[in-house]
């Protein structure tokens, strides 16, 4: 419990100091205030109050005036912050292919605000993306060539099943049956449902290129009622959203 309180009290500026000290201590046995100020690009005068607070928290120990080192707890905290920083930098730089300066800056901003759980999962994803070549050999390559990522890319022939349905980018994103208003005619472009319900929709004739018309919606806004090939079907919101359509312009 106390540990959590301490962590919360550790502001991002203090975390940055810890990180800097940690980095300095990788190269030399002790850290001098002057070096810290230099690394952080601040005046030596503003370093001392920060160090004093870190010392009060028991994270930093003064060996002499001007010379500090990390206590065991301090070292642990610092290592945590530092490894976050490294992972995030790598993520922005080598996976999202951002310039290294921007990557560094975004990593600095992000490392303080993620929860341990969120960070842990992100780290696993990053490791998977970077290392797991057996599941997805040219996966990253394809990602950067995909129209989702690359605005100049030609339209992709593959039918992508977005795991978010159409909800992740609902402005300007693809339209689903659920977005139609009564009387609208449209043509099915993708069926994003999975598993048994996907097969059911396909069996009902909801296939790419099929023409559908939205007839009406139920009193509470769902289910929706569609016409398709002389038959009429009711779909709940979730199913209707899984069927993407193109509207004739």
């Amino acid at each position, binding site marked *: 419990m106390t540990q959590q309180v301490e962590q919360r009290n550790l502001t991002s500026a203090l975390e940055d100091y810890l990180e800097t000290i940690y980095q300095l201590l990788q190269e030399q046995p002790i850290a001098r205030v002057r070096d810290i100020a230099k690394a952080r690009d601040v005046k030596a005068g503003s370093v001392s109050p920060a160090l004093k607070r870190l010392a009060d928290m028991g994270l930093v120990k003064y060996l002499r005036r001007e010379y500090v080192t990390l206590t065991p707890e301090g070292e642990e905290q610092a290592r945590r912050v530092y490894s976050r920083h490294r992972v995030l930098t790598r993520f922005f730089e080598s996976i999202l292919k951002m310039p290294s300066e921007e990557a560094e800056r975004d990593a600095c901003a992000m490392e303080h605000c993620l929860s341990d759980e969120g960070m842990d999962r992100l780290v696993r994803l990053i490791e998977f993306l970077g290392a797991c070549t057996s599941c997805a050999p040219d996966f990253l390559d394809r990602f950067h060539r995909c129209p989702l990522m690359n605005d100049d890319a030609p339209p992709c*022939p*593959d*039918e992508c*099943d977005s795991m978010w349905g159409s909800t992740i980018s609902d402005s300007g994103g693809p339209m689903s049956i659920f977005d139609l208003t009564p009387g609208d005619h449209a043509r099915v472009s993708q*069926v994003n*449902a999975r598993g*048994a*319900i*996907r*097969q*059911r*929709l*396909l*069996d*009902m*004739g909801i*296939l*790419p290129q099929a023409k559908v018309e939205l*007839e*009406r*919606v*139920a*009193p*509470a*806004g*769902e*289910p929706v*009622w569609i016409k398709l*090939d*002389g*038959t*009429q*079907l*009711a*779909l*709940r919101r*979730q*199913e209707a959203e899984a069927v993407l359509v193109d509207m004739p312009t």
Partner: protein
Amino acid sequence: MSQLRLPIPEVTIRTIRVALAGNPNSGKTSIFNSLTGAHQHVGNYPGVTVEKRWGGFTAKGTDFNVQDLPGTYSLTSFSPEERIAQNELLDGGHDVVVVVVDSMSLKRSLVLLAQVMQTGANPVLCLNMSDEAERTGLRLDLGQMRKLLGIPIVQTVGHRGIGVDRLVDAVHAAADSPVRRPRLVLGERMEKAIGAIRGHMEPMHGAAGGRDWVATKLMMGEEEFVQRMQGVEGDWGGAAIEEAQRQRKWIESSTGQDVALFVTERYFGFVDGLLREVVREVPRKDARAVSDAVDKILVHRALGLPIFAALMYLIFWVTFTLGAIPMDWIDAGFGWLGEAITGFWPEGSESPLESLLVDGVIGGVGGVIIFLPNILLLFIGLALLEDTGYMARAAFLMDRIMHRFGLHGKSFVPMMTGFGCSIPGIMATRTLENERDRLTTMLVLPLMSCGARLPIWMLLIPAFFAPVWRAPVLWLIYAFGIALALVLALVLRRSVLKGEDAPFVMELPPYRVPTARAVLMKMGERSWLYLRKAGTIILGISILMWAATAYPSRAEYDVDAQIASGAITLSDEEIENARTAEDLRFSIAGRVGRTIEPLIAPLGFDWKMGTAMIGAFAAKEVFVAQMGIVYAMGETDEESQGLRETLARDYSPLTGVSLMLFLLISSPCMATLAVTRREAGSWRWAWLQFGGLTAVAYLISLVVYQVGSLLI
């Protein structure tokens, strides 16, 4: 070895096994009924039939064994009732499979035909609803269609039995000529893939055509078929699985589509090609124009739900007011009969046989039978909802509300069926794909006030409510049942039956005008069932109840002792009344009733109601019968009052309300429990249903009666 050999009779008659397959609501059961003369349930919404049923008839010197199956959209498993049909079609060993299709939605229906052809079955195509097709001007070149498909094709009008004789001819001919049917070719890529997989399947037994089906399913990675292949002797099964995976990858990478979409598109492509060749004239008229116009009103966004509530109200109003007229006649008839029987015995005799006939049989069974007209009217109402197609609309309108309470729009159809009887309602839950939805619906379904409880309402409501209130109160009982079912469903879904929501995809058929024959048939069937129940189980229990109420009787009465000792003085009539009351309390029923009385007294019930409730566990109508018996036995004066008047005299309206609530909610009847056990798969659920509902009923009645007593 010398054994006695019995001469085996020459079998000249052969048997042809026929299955009726097709999309839901394509008219399979109508055709089945026309073929076999059966009266299986038909209705204008998908998912009426949920069980396989055999029927038979003889024609052309041949026995036909026909199997009606639940409807299915494709041969890929989904809901439990579809699985029944699929298993039967894949492994049923039928000589002929009649694929019944709705001529108005050929595209989707013929996909099923394509799949049946792939399984290597011997299909006959039955183009049903040809009357509707003709009316809209759709014309097909049947000759061309037969040539292209290589199978017999017959046009029918299922519910009128038109074309059914030709169907019999076609089935007979098809069974006799197992010609080599052309293989279904689904395009080049698919052919290559199937060919490659089939290459490994040479050792497989069975029809060569079926291999195409197995190969397709292996490619789609369907668990069941993969397991089947893993189970074969030799290593060719594994090789086939591997090949199927290779083909799947190849198809997916070369087309950019997943295999499910690819294969389904092939089927639809095949049907499109076929239809291009055989459709001579496309429909001139919109087949559903009228139906759509009606829907504009009935499922109107704002008016839909109020109209639904009003329709339900109309049904109860008719049940009540129209039903009252013939009810009075029947009542008078029984009154006359009772007097006629009494006439055989001398005035003032105490013959047990007279009491059995007049008090037990007429008081009990007669008391149930007089409600036959109400039952009939209720069932006409339900039959109209089913046969017109409104049922599917009700499910559409109610889905959102049902969803809020963790149920499914489709659950509403079994619930409406439950207004007739809980048993078919519980069976109808098979149309729900998700096991948890199914269990939840099943468990709360007895809260739908069934036809057997209608006599109870017909007895109690007029006893306690003024005429203007009667129909609204009846409506309220039903509405309260639905509301409580929803609340309990929510509780179940939040506790023992937690889980994901199931998808909701439902077809809405066009409205159809119900045939008088169909409605009369349903009515006739219901009246027969009701009368049969009255003549068997209710009669039996009435006699038991009569005996329990009549015996043992006292030899000496306390009143007489008190009068003799001079403690009280009473008129003759009062003495007679007191003696009868003592007899009743002394009888078995009286003792049992008084044992449980302390338990039910807080709800406002006395021991008479208690014994009637025990009887009601066997069949709900017995409640009415037993009340009739107890009061008939209690009657002493010649001018007998009606049972209702007696009830109104003896109990307060508050007791009436508490009683009605208890009877609505508490323990479902024995038959319902047995069906729940069977459909849910374990007694656990049946006991939960029994215990849970009874406990809730007790609580609600307790609160209503106690709070009510404080207020009044």
